[in-house]
């Protein structure tokens, strides 16, 4: 089976996340509030050198 989104170069993960985000937006206010908190994702990173952690940096999705 071929998928229309595959034909324009979207990946399964990408499509799945679009779909999940759309689902979060179609919730009743209470549930939506909790769900939208999950939307924000980030990576916490630090570069280690000589056995010591460097500065901790937060990377957000739009900076990736």
């Amino acid at each position, binding site marked *: 089976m071929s998928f229309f*989104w595959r034909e*324009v170069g979207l990946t399964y993960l990408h499509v799945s996340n679009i779909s999940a985000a759309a*689902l979060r937006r*179609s919730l009743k206010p209470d549930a939506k509030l909790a769900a939208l908190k999950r939307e924000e994702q980030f990576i916490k990173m630090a570069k280690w050198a000589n056995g010591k952690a460097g500065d901790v940096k937060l990377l957000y999705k739009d900076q990736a």
Partner: protein
Amino acid sequence: MLFRSALVAVRSAANFSARRLYASEAGSGGKLRLNFALPHQTILKDFEAIQVNIQSSEGDMGILADHVPTIAQLANGGVIEILAADNKPRKFFVEYLFILPHTAQSSSPVSGGFAIINPDSSLNINAVEAVAVEDLDAEAARKGADEASRKMNASGASEKDKAEARVEFELFEAVLAAAKV
């Protein structure tokens, strides 16, 4: 329904293949054990269900204990209905997910967006997002669908943008269908 007859064909084909062994060898004791997990939450763990209904792209599917390990893909957005002995209705709405056969006898692979029917009648469902059907807001979905369809038909939008809008549109339509029930 066309999809339905295709599914029947797939099922009867599976009955005659070597895969049949998995169902007949299953030592489940007639019980379906369900694991239902999201990245941020375990909804059900080792839950004893009588039947699990899912909406696959090939039609609706009811999964009982000793089900033949099957491949089916859920449509973009669908309801998972879990029937248990306590008769308490449990309905969840999930975005995209797949059903995969599990061919090895070892522990089951777990990845995002898949449901796996194992030979021992355990069923693993993993999705990025799942919510209770009661929490769906038809009004919000209607607005989302309108906006997505506008984006889909916008002139000057790239094919990629249009495809993304179509994914959203399908999901909102599925939410509307589920919220009406």
